[in-house]
């Protein structure tokens, strides 16, 4: 037996004092064509037993790389130096065989994308049992491990666990797979759990479930937790301490409350100021952080944030500032030479950010002052239906069912107005969009654009009406043809619609300026732009034909937080300047609250609540809206810890076989609390959409206000 086996096969000594994990001066670099990428540059942190450390940063900040280094899972090409001590024992320099004895037993990990985290060819139960067998194969029989796997699945809240353990990963939903991964992570009662963006790929309601489960996991195992995220909301209520990373280094660390209330590094300030707040009703000034994170191949001397910092002075460029104690507290440290000045401002948190970054509330458009009823209707949906056939059979296809993707939805959008369409994935948002953009005769109901019913259109009129409507897609990387120059990308819609050459040449640079890009860059290709810039190009293309309505399909969800704010601000400015109407599809309700005038909540192909945005957010009537709002974490540790969260059970039912009566009743907490005779109403009768207040309708038999923010 080698010394390492003796080290790690002995049970952990609970009496051992000190941190579980101690990272000191960690450096990680990778080779790349442009030179060595210094992904992590001198990172130091500690995690105490039972403590939750949140690591926050944008993509490329080194947060995931540093945790993979702890697990020993970096590719061979990575060069690692510094020290990683786990329970006092050095991990760097250990062989894979030695590290594999700790991985999954003492330190376990939960990954970002649950859809690809499980091996597709083995059952979920087998994969969990494997985690036990690989460490305790000598003392635990296969049957015992399989039984334990079922218990674990039950513990993480998989209903009917014994049966489901025999299922393959593709038979699980995303949320259930993440539960299975967590079951695997806690299988051997680890001392440290690293969760790398564990909820990023999940819907908000499922995110709330998974976060709660992680808290349970921590209680059960007593493990220290490192939770990595880009979402400041997620960690506000969960983490004890926070570390903000930028360009491979920690730039601010401290207690969660201190960092959210008294951020002392301009980057942290900017991050906090850039998130739209779900709990703020009045228009808020969003802080856009200009520029992009630096390239990590050849960093210039000085503070890496200096090129984007509003407080930059000459001294910032001379040397990279170390983490220094702020406000005389040894726990709160920030890497900025001007922390004292930030401390001297009167305002706190996001307000201080808006002040320092000079962010302003975007002016409302003239048209917004006209009462809604007097404005022109840009888009009207009346009872829109879209169904898909479910076919079975190889030689002779026969229809075995129908997916009611959109089942009779109605709303209108008026000039200069933004309607936010929200709901979980699979609720029919995208189908609705596609139906509107298709301009074809719908299966049921009517679509009218600027007063023209689309089913009456011939192909010539349909082509003409496309000018009045345009679209911005979610993924800025995939929605621009990489072989066209930006000039061609923006000019294309105008060429199709027969604009003259002169007009196009005049208008393209104009559009570039409009979206905040330099016209000199027109001859470049999409690959040379960052995600945020590409999304601006997508917006410029959408505006080329001077549309009345722009359909935005998750336009900011693929962008980093600091970039997101800039695009949201741009959209607001354009709307105000050009009098546009937006149909804004998003799953992020905070963004919707910030940008939308009205909001429609969809569930299983139906709109269950619709109305003026503040009325819906402040006084939601439908239990689903209440649950959805309560599931969204607020980036404020104090508020977040006081909130009572409504956790929805289970996943969205199949739209091929929706529940009778009210479709939400199977997951409804209100329904569950009702006496049987009232429950019968929910089961038998589909609730109609009823007026609840001025410009506020909800479809619930027992609608009542419940404040959740």
């Amino acid at each position: 037996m080698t010394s390492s086996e003796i080290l790690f096969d002995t049970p952990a000594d609970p009496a051992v004092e000190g941190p579980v994990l101690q990272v000191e001066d960690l450096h990680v670099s990778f080779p790349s064509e442009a030179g060595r990428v210094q992904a992590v540059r001198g990172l130091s942190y500690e995690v105490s037993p039972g403590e939750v450390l949140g690591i926050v940063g944008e993509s490329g900040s080194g947060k995931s790389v540093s945790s993979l280094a702890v697990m020993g899972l970096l590719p061979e090409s990575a060069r690692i130096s510094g020290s990683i001590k786990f329970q006092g024992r050095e991990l760097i320099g250990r062989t894979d065989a030695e590290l594999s004895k700790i991985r999954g037993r003492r330190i376990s990990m939960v990954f970002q994308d649950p859809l690809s985290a499980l091996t597709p060819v083995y059952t979920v139960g087998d994969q969990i049992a494997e985690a036990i067998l690989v460490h305790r194969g000598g003392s635990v029989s296969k049957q015992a491990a399989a039984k334990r796997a079922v218990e674990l699945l039950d513990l993480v809240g998989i209903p009917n666990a014994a049966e489901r353990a025999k299922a393959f990963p593709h038979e699980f939903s995303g949320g259930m797979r993440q539960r299975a991964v967590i079951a695997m992570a806690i299988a051997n009662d680890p001392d440290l759990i690293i969760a790398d963006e564990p909820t990023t790929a999940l819907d908000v309601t499922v995110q709330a479930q998974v976060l709660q489960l992680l808290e349970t996991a921590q209680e059960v195992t007593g493990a220290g937790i490192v939770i990595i995220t880009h979402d400041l909301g997620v960690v506000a209520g969960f983490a004890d301490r926070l570390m903000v990373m930028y360009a491979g280094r920690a730039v601010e660390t401290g207690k969660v409350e201190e960092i959210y209330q008294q951020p002392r590094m301009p980057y942290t300030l900017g991050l906090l100021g850039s998130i739209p707040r779900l709990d703020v009703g009045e228009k808020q000034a969003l802080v856009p952080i200009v520029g992009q994170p630096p390239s990590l191949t050849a960093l210039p001397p000085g503070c890496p944030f200096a090129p984007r910092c509003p407080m930059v002075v000459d001294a910032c460029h001379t040397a990279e500032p170390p983490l220094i104690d702020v406000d005389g507290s040894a726990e709160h440290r920030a890497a900025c030479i001007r922390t004292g000045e930030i401390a001297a401002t009167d305002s706190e948190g996001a307000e201080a950010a808006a002040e320092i970054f000079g962010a302003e509330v975007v002016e409302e458009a003239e048209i917004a002052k006209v009462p809604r009823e007097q404005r022109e209707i840009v888009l009207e949906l009346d009872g829109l239906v879209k169904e898909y056939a479910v076919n079975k059979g190889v030689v002779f296809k026969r229809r075995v069912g129908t997916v009611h993707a959109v089942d009779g939805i109605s709303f209108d959008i008026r000039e200069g107005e933004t309607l936010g369409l929200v709901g979980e994935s699979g609720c029919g948002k995208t189908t609705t969009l596609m139906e509107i953009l298709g301009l074809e005769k719908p299966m049921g109901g009517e679509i009218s654009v600027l007063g023209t019913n689309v089913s009456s259109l011939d192909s010539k009129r349909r082509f003409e009406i496309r000018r009045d409507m345009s679209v911005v897609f979610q993924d800025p990387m995939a929605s621009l043809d990489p072989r066209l120059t930006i000039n061609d990308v923006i000019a294309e819609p105008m060429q199709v619609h027969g604009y003259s050459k002169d007009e196009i040449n005049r208008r393209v640079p104009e559009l570039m300026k409009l979206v905040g890009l330099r016209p000199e860059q027109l001859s470049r290709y999409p690959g040379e732009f960052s995600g945020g810039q590409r999304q601006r190009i997508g917006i410029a293309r959408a505006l080329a034909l001077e549309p009345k309505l722009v359909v935005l399909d998750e336009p900011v969800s693929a962008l980093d937080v600091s970039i997101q704010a800039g695009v949201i601000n741009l959209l607001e400015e354009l709307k105000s300047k050009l009098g546009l109407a937006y149909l804004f599809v998003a799953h992020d309700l905070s963004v919707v609250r910030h940008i939308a005038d009205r909001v429609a909540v969809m569930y299983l192909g139906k709109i269950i609540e619709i109305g003026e945005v503040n009325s819906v957010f402040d006084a939601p009537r439908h239990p689903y809206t209440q649950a959805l709002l309560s599931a969204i974490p607020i980036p404020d540790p104090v508020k977040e810890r006081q909130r009572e969260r409504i956790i929805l059970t289970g996943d969205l039912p199949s739209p091929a076989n929706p529940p009778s009566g009210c479709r939400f009743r199977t997951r409804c907490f209100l329904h569950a609390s009702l006496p049987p005779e009232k429950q019968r109403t929910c089961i038998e009768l589909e609730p109609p959409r009823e007026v609840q207040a001025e410009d506020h309708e909800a479809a619930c038999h027992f609608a009542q206000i419940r404040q959740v923010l």
Partner: protein
Amino acid sequence: MAGFLLRRLVNYVVLALVATFLAFTLASVTFDPIGLLQQRNPPPPAASIEAKKRDLHLDQPIPQRFVTWMSGVVQGDFGRTVADRPITDELGRRIGVSLRLFLLGITIGILFGVLIGVVSAIRQYKFSDYFATLFSFILLSTPVLVLGNLLKIGAQSINNSIGSNVLIFVGEETPGFQGNWFEHLGDRLQHLILPTLAIALGQIAYYSRYQRSSMLDVLGSDFLRTAQAKGLTRRKALMKHGLRTALIPMATLFAFGFGLLVVGGTFTERIFTWYGMGDWLVTGISAQDTNITATVTLFVAVCVLFSGWLADVLYAALDPRIRVN
């Protein structure tokens, strides 16, 4: 599942019939066995030529000839050759020869192809990877005709240096060989080594390229990372989770490789003088024999369709995601 595979089989029978009919028609239209007969020196008497015509049903229209032939096939009678020998007897023997020749070569090809592909992927851009890549490309670009003859030359010089005929490259066994079953087996193995090498080398080169790229796809996958995070060593995670998943796309290649090689090995058979199916096709065509050509075509069709069916079965066995309920 069983019902699904059964329906597939019914489809396949129809396809095999169509393929055979086309080959039969094409052969009947182009072949002129009587002309070949007349060119003999001295020419056969007119009466026997007439008799031959009748024997071969050349007086009937082609579709009728096909029906006549096919109704025999259904009863297990594949007709007679132009030289008036029963095809059925020879068919069984030749299938046996081909299977004995190719089964071993293909099995070795698949095993080593997978192994080399996996190692290349895991040690990407290392020396072993470059080495395997270079040799694969050399082998893939060498026609089996050249490779077979090179092997023969190499074997000859080995035999010469040893001073005895260890590696034999003519036929399946030594004619008139006397000995017990064990010595017979040894004799057959001596004959088998070279042709097996000729087949296996090409197969290894081919499969290793595909296995390498399918393994590379899996190497970066999240589930491999999860397996390691559970505590599996990298090697174990690669074998149990990585290779198992990377084999799925290979199923089709394996199945079709098998089906096609049994008849595609014409050159190998000819070089090493094995009288298998590939050799028979060439013999049949040069003898202007419609029945042989149609029989071999039917066999090819059955092989190809069986491969397709096998691919489906393999896929279902390897990948739970496509199992049909």
